[in-house]
């Protein structure tokens, strides 16, 4: 019997875009388009089963082997450091992890910098590489408000167009790392479903080349 390939996708726009690409690559699962609220869909003929999960959980499903492959943003991979293979940069969902501060902010290197962020690991690693002493405040959302209200000096967050920053009188000070969607695979699954996984990588990579 053909082994099913378990694919975990992030809910939302990114996941839908990834599914479009996978559909075009020959991994269609028509029931996904039914508009149901189900979270698991499968197409035994194409040998594929899809799960929709919260974007920040994709890497966990892959690392723990529930899913063989998945698509996660590089921000999630850098933050949680899952032990997985990162097989392909899908080239979409492009944005950047950046340090932003109020437009009139002037950094004083003599004092500890207060940083508000959802991505504490990324922020800590970034400032450690610069030898800068920081005080991290972990927030779960609306990060932009932290420097406005004086909770922090700067924020480390994902910046797409920069519109939200501008509306809140914030500016990008430095880019930490560019972000895009990555195709990841469970290391053990790669041993036992390698042909199927390599096939997905090859077909997705071919689409990338076509779109260049």
């Amino acid at each position: 019997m053909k082994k099913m390939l378990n694919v975990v996708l992030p809910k939302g726009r990114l996941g839908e875009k990834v599914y479009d690409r996978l559909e075009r690559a020959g991994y269609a699962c028509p029931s996904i388009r039914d508009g149901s609220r189900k979270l698991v869909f499968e197409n035994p003929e194409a040998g594929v089963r899809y799960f929709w999960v919260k974007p920040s959980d994709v890497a966990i499903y892959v690392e723990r082997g529930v899913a063989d492959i998945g698509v996660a943003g590089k921000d999630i991979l850098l933050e949680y450091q899952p032990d997985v293979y990162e097989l392909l940069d899908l080239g979409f969902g492009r944005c950047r992890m950046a340090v932003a501060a109020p437009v009139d902010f002037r950094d004083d290197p003599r004092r500890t910098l207060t940083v508000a962020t959802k991505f504490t690991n990324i922020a800590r690693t970034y400032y450690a590489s610069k030898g800068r002493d920081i005080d991290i405040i972990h927030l779960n959302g609306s990060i932009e408000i932290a420097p406005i209200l004086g909770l922090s000096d700067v924020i480390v967050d994902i910046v797409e167009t920069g519109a939200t920053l501008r509306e809140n009188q914030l500016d990008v000070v430095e880019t930490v790392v560019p972000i895009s969607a990555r195709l990841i695979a469970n290391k053990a699954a790669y041993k036992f479903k390698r042909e199927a996984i390599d096939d997905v990588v090859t077909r997705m990579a071919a689409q990338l080349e076509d779109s260049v």
Partner: protein
Amino acid sequence: MNQTTLRNDEKTIFALRELYRKYGYSQYKMSKFEEYELYVRNKDFLISDNIITFTDTNGKLLALKPDVTLSIIKNSQDTPGVVQKVYYNENVYRVSSGTHAFNEIMQVGLECIGDIDAYCLYEVLCLAAQSLRCIRENGVLDISHLGILDGLLERFGVESHDRKEIWCCVGEKNRHELAAFCKQIGLSEEKTAVLQQLTALSGRPDMVLAQLRQMPAVMESPEPVEELAQLCDALQAGGYGDMIEIDFSVVSDSRYYNGVVFKGFVEGAADSVLSGGQYDRLMRRMGRRSGAIGFAVYMDRLQRLLQDDRGYDVDTVLLYDDMASVSTLQTAVADLAAQGRTVMAQRQRPEKIAYRCLARLCGNEVQILEENA
């Protein structure tokens, strides 16, 4: 001993111990505690650098052991021409990546320390492959040789502080970031292409070795490739050809490891369940002249896979009431037990207990009330 008394993980541990004993490895027993200093000096060698410490009555700082290999090396002796072969089955205490909390983890493994030759390498790899077979029929042993990538980075003139990032990309099979990083450090496109090719290379030894031999940059220093080839040939001849693969994503810290490194996978486990390699560099750091190779089987990663099929908790639940005397009840229980059944005597039907048969003691008679297939 009745085999059904043992849990699946216990059966596996016994099978592994029996296997290592058969090849002349003797059991290494150690105390739960070790001086903290031993781990501080080699912190990066440990999977997790969180260690449980406490002060002994004499003021010495001790640690609940997070690792067994360091203790074995500490107690090994450098005797030319001699190879010390030991296996262990010990609990270690470390933080698991998933829970971020300390766990007691059962670890089974072996170490071969001394004048390591080609046979020692073969024997340890062969025992690693057999260990995987003890766990599951379907296993894969990924083998790599650190000397191949190490040699390339040396010849390409990559600074030692840049190598960690390259090792990391190779370990993730991350060719796109490898290319970006090589560009950042000014490595030529030609050299980058060689590193990318090596990152993508994995599969059956004959196929991978043939490709390696076609790579002039790799073959400038052919010794590691030939050592790998010799080892794979021996493993194939030993009957392990169907389960070995060469994969350069098996990377280990090159400050401790050198030469052959390997990881074992079994179908159904989400992570590698076995990991090992040659660690002559760790031996040097600990003041030893001899070489060493070993591996560990991570029983915690097998927990879900080796879960027992609980089926029934007990064969027969025997209900009794106030009319039953102790002697009649005892006789009924003993009779059932003598038939090889497990029996639980209860006044009422117990909840949350799965039983094959529910019976009641009426006088001297055992009446069957319910039987589950």
